[in-house]
């Protein structure tokens, strides 16, 4: 099979093919009811933490800004529900430690129609205007990294962007939120693409979609056709081979253009900006209405869920509420993963809220996990599976052996540990059941701490 792929000419070298398990690929997006109480953590993104601009006891309207910052690398937050600010302080965070949050009790009677907004006409807006509008909307990357979108779309002075790459790969198993967004909100997506092109000055935009989602390509091409020839340039939708981690921007650019983004560089060094489809579709809806990001599409799925599906979830909804609604019966569910199974994080508790960067909630059942626990861990048998699957072209076998002997410095200096983007392919394939990427995370953390203390 590997042999064949040699002649077929694949998108990028290596990578893996986990079973796709896309249970919810053809169910429409539904709306989740409002939880009685929502918790908005102030830090949901990469960058500075904004400060609250509401007081305890203050009434807020759905969509109204509740936290704000003048720092460039930071985004405002908006109230996801109409209600009363009940508490401002520490609450359980997604990563474990408690974080500063704003808790809002929803008005049971209030109609949760969008109330707050500053509609504006963006037909002739300049790039700068659009960037400001994006900033005001509190938009961050919805693909997972949660990097402030206005910052990403701001082209550095010495650089020039010609291509906007739209990432519709959704290579992780189980997740279908991007897929459904592309199918159901194609028009909003194209609108969002146009804004982003104008903001960056790109004259071409390509949506890259894995070839297991042909309906998404069709939907987007129809939306493009409905638009006619747009003034910003040209927009295409392209299929790329289905393979994990096709959705990583480096791999996607490789698949579409056949060039490698130089190590340590951003796509902008090749004149490209990469955005997630969810991000741009949300922009397409929010910017004309002048609203903030208060809800997102989340895939709630997994063998432990009775009613799997893609739901529009107000940000801040507690995980417990989401799972109760989707029918995740308590006893046998043993692991709740925020994100996809390959890169997602295990939830530390069910009291944490849904945040901006969360694309999926995956519930695994105990019996599904049991076989894995009983599988024995062997020393590395040098089967080379990991080397053949590491999309970054590293040597996880050697890195793993070094990590076992705590040779962290050597890992960084001689074996390019810094290039590892923690996709987990190596751990996925290892027949010896060695927790490779898990060790690499620790190693990177230790190296980071060493570098700081120096």
């Amino acid at each position, binding site marked *: 099979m590997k042999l064949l792929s040699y002649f077929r000419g694949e998108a990028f070298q290596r990578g893996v093919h986990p079973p796709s398990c896309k249970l919810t690929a053809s169910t429409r997006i539904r709306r989740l009811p409002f939880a009685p109480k929502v918790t908005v953590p102030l830090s949901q993104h990469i960058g500075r933490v904004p400060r609250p601009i509401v007081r305890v006891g203050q009434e807020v309207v759905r969509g109204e800004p509740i936290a704000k910052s003048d720092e460039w690398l930071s985004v405002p937050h908006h109230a996801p529900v109409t209600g009363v600010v009940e508490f401002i302080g520490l609450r359980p965070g997604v990563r474990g430690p408690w974080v500063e949050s704003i808790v809002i009790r929803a008005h049971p009677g209030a109609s949760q129609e969008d109330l707050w907004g500053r509609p504006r006409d963006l037909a002739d807006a300049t790039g700068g205007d659009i960037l400001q509008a994006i900033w005001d909307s509190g938009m961050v990357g919805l693909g997972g990294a949660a990097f402030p979108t206005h910052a990403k779309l701001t082209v550095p002075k010495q650089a020039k962007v010609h291509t906007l790459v739209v990432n519709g790969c959704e290579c992780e198993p189980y997740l279908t939120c991007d897929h459904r967004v592309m199918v159901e909100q194609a028009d909003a997506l194209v609108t969002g693409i146009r804004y982003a092109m104008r903001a960056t000055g790109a004259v071409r935009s390509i949506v890259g979609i894995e070839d297991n989602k042909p309906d998404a390509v069709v939907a987007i091409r129809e939306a493009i056709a409905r638009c006619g020839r747009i003034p910003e340039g040209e927009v295409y939708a392209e299929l790329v081979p289905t393979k994990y981690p096709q959705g990583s921007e480096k791999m996607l650019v490789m698949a579409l253009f056949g060039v490698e983004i130089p190590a340590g560089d951003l796509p902008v060094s090749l004149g490209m900006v990469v955005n997630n489809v969810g991000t741009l579709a949300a922009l397409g809806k929010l910017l004309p209405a002048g609203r903030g990001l208060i809800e997102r599409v989340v895939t709630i799925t997994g063998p432990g869920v009775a009613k799997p599906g893609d739901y529009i979830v107000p940000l801040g909804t507690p995980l417990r509420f989401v799972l109760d609604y989707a029918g995740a019966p308590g006893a046998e569910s043993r692991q709740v993963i925020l994100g996809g199974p390959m890169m997602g994080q295990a939830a530390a508790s069910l009291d944490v809220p849904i945040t901006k960067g969360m694309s999926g909630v995956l519930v695994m059942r105990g019996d599904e996990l049991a076989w894995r626990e009983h599988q024995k861990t062997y020393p590395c048998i040098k089967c080379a599976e990991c080397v053949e699957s590491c999309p970054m072209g590293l040597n996880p076998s050697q890195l793993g052996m*070094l990590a076992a002997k705590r040779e962290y410095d050597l890992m960084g200096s001689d074996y390019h540990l810094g290039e590892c983007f923690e996709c987990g392919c190596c751990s996925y394939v290892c027949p010896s059941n060695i927790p490779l990427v898990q060790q690499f995370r620790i190693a990177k953390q230790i190296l980071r701490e060493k570098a700081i203390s120096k």
Partner: protein
Amino acid sequence: MHESAAQIFINAFLANNFVLAMFLGLCPFIGVSGKLETAAPMGAATTFVMLVASLCAYGLNLLLGYFQLEFLRLIAYIVIIASTVQLVEMVLKKYSPSLFRALGIYLPLITTNCAVLGVALFQTARDYDFIQSITFAVGAGAGFTLALVLMASVRERLQLSDVPAVAQGTALSLMLAGILSLAFMGFAGLGG
């Protein structure tokens, strides 16, 4: 029987490898083969000294033969090797400090390495002429380097293995040398 230069080289390099088949230069082989970084320069330095020692021994042997002083051969060889090493060290220090820094620490060790004296003694015992002597010295040095480098790379890999505690250290090195020597038996008769 006249051995061609190529035969002498291949024999000294592979078939009768100094370390693995002739048991010469084992102390540095076991001692310096822990790391690839040190093994390669050590091999290069030894090869160099072997070449110099071979040249000196060749000349000296003619001289001793002329004066019929063969019974002083051993003492003369060892003195001349020790002093050439010293000389080489001084010359290197003066004219090529970078090379000296790379090889310097190994040079004194080599004085007491029996592989070097072995080259001198064997070439005398086998009546090699000038060209043969030089080829022999270079072959022996190359063989020594090959064994050292192979051993060092294997030992570096074993640093990452869970070698049982009893076997760690010299015992493991010796067993490895034995296995390498077993593998090199395949070359027996190659230079024939």
